[in-house]
């Protein structure tokens, strides 16, 4: 017996499919039109283009580094929020809470491991992402501003790590922050003021712990989220990822009627405003493929790989926790985490030049890069011969930076004297 049309029974029987179709307006795509519609009809997918250039999906071109940075950020947000349920930013309690996390909280150690290794990973991957963008010349016009956003994101990432490692309130935390904020104190004119504002007191103590906590769990993550959103949005607006000119296919078969310029007295739809009135006929070869499923599969793959690596690392290695803070006795040698050891090594030669001068100049150089190097050549390929000079300069900086980190990590012993690790 089929239920009467419009009856309660019919509504009940069709309930699941009605609910489903009210949530997902688009069925799982089976043809090109439906594939195109996925990006428009799903909130979480609408940042994706409908089609994406094949070059964008070449694993050896991007190595997925930008995506991996983003996924690490997501893991950090999730594990960080979970850790907040047990953490107290007080000098009396913070360290005990670390021990509790290890001893009496289900999955406490594991979550802390994930948070720590993702943080280390994010610093490294963001740095490698910057290297990839530089060596492929991807910062050139029209992507100058997105490069600038990337430089700011690198600094925010470093500052997030820096504020994060005071929180366990162990020896490393205390002395790293003592050294780090003293470096800030060397900045000309405003240095002392910045140090005082950061610490909220003359020395590292309760006020500093509270301030770093607020920066770490609220201020910086919000800034990072906002910048990441703009960073992604700019990829679309700048015409997708950079690619060599040869990756473009001129759509000569398309009948395109494009207005020379927009008439200021007419009203245009969004598409008309962006591209001008245009008619595209037929399926023109343009060297691109549909985002569904190609791009989404690539993203899923990057996510699974990232998460798996973090999970395995967190199972194998425990995040270090040193002795509780002893404000009388700095460990000897007192070392910052590895990504600041290059800085610490330079600081051992000159506090101003090593801690403020040279890093400041380096950041300034990074910011100015796309505005100095304006030749449009060599975009979209690794180590283009046309970019030999720029790549050599950048590679020198990278090697120096890594070199200083290696010296600081393995070749410095008590009183920061030179030792050999063997």
């Amino acid at each position, binding site marked *: 017996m089929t239920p009467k049309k419009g009856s309660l029974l019919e509504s009940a029987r069709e309930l699941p499919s009605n609910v489903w179709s009210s949530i997902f307006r688009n069925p799982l795509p089976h043809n090109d039109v439906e594939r195109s519609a996925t990006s428009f009809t799903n909130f979480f997918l609408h940042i994706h283009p409908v089609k994406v250039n094949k070059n964008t999906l070449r694993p050896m071109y991007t190595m997925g580094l930008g995506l991996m940075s983003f996924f690490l950020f997501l893991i950090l947000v999730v594990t960080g929020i979970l850790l907040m349920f047990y953490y107290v930013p007080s000098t009396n309690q913070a360290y005990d809470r670390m021990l509790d996390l290890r001893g009496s909280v289900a999955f406490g150690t594991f979550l802390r491991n994930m948070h720590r290794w993702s943080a280390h990973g994010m610093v490294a991957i963001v740095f490698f992402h910057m290297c990839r963008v530089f060596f492929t010349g991807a910062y050139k016009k029209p992507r100058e501003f997105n490069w600038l956003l990337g430089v700011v994101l690198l600094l925010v990432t470093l500052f997030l790590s820096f504020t994060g490692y005071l929180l366990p309130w162990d020896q490393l935390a205390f002395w790293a922050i003592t050294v780090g904020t003293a470096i800030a104190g060397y900045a000309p004119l405003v240095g002392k003021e910045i140090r005082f*504002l950061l610490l909220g*007191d*003359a020395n590292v103590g*309760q*006020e500093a712990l509270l301030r770093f906590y607020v920066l770490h769990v609220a201020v910086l993550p919000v800034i990072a989220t906002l910048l990441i959103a703009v960073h992604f949005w700019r990829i679309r607006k700048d015409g997708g990822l950079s690619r060599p000119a040869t990756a473009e296919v001129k759509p000569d078969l398309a009948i395109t009627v494009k207005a020379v310029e927009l008439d200021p007295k007419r009203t245009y739809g969004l598409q008309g405003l962006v591209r001008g009135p245009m008619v595209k006929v037929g399926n023109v070869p343009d060297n691109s493929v549909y985002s569904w499923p190609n791009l989404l599969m690539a993203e899923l793959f990057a996510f699974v790989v990232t998460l798996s690596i973090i999970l395995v690392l967190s199972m194998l290695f425990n995040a270090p926790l040193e002795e509780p803070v002893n404000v*009388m006795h700095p460990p000897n040698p007192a070392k910052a985490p590895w990504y600041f050891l290059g800085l610490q090594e330079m*600081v*051992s030669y000159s*506090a101003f030049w*090593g801690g403020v001068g040279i890093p400041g100049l380096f950041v300034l150089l990074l910011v100015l890069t796309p505005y100095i190097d304006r030749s449009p050549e060599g975009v979209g390929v690794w180590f283009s011969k046309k970019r030999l000079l720029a790549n050599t300069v950048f590679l020198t900086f990278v090697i120096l930076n890594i070199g200083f980190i290696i010296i600081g990590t393995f070749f410095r012993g008590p009183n920061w004297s030179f030792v050999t690790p063997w």
Partner: protein
Amino acid sequence: MGLNPRRSSEAEAAEQQNASRRRMLGWLTGVGLFGSGILSAFSNFVFIKPRATYGAPQRFTIGKPTSYPEGTRVAIEPRRICIVRDGNRLAAISTTCTHLGCIVGLSDTGFACPCHGSRYDQDGTVTGGPAPKPLAWYKVSLAPNGELEIDKDVEVQPGTYLNV
């Protein structure tokens, strides 16, 4: 329309006046909004700069001179100072490294910093490492009750002792 040139120019003048008033109002609005933005940024800055701090006091007493006999060279770690007695003269030298604020330890030749390897002689003069200036000497005085009083807010010339 246009038949009366006088009226037309009057209307034009009125239109011009309107335009300049609009420009003026727009300009005032801009300045007002921008000024409010600057003011609120400044008040946030004032807000996060603490007026009172909760840390250890900068001025404190450390007991009678007799508890520091001839030849004393002892670090009072919680206060981050080293008390030196040379004959009948007393002085307080900072044990905070002038490089990046680590605590220097007493060594055979003076002071040594564990963080970046700065070294100082007995008087706090830099003898090696990245420290840019000598260790600070603080004002030492005798409080009315006969105890030694140190004021870390007042630095004195290295070599300035208190005779006791």
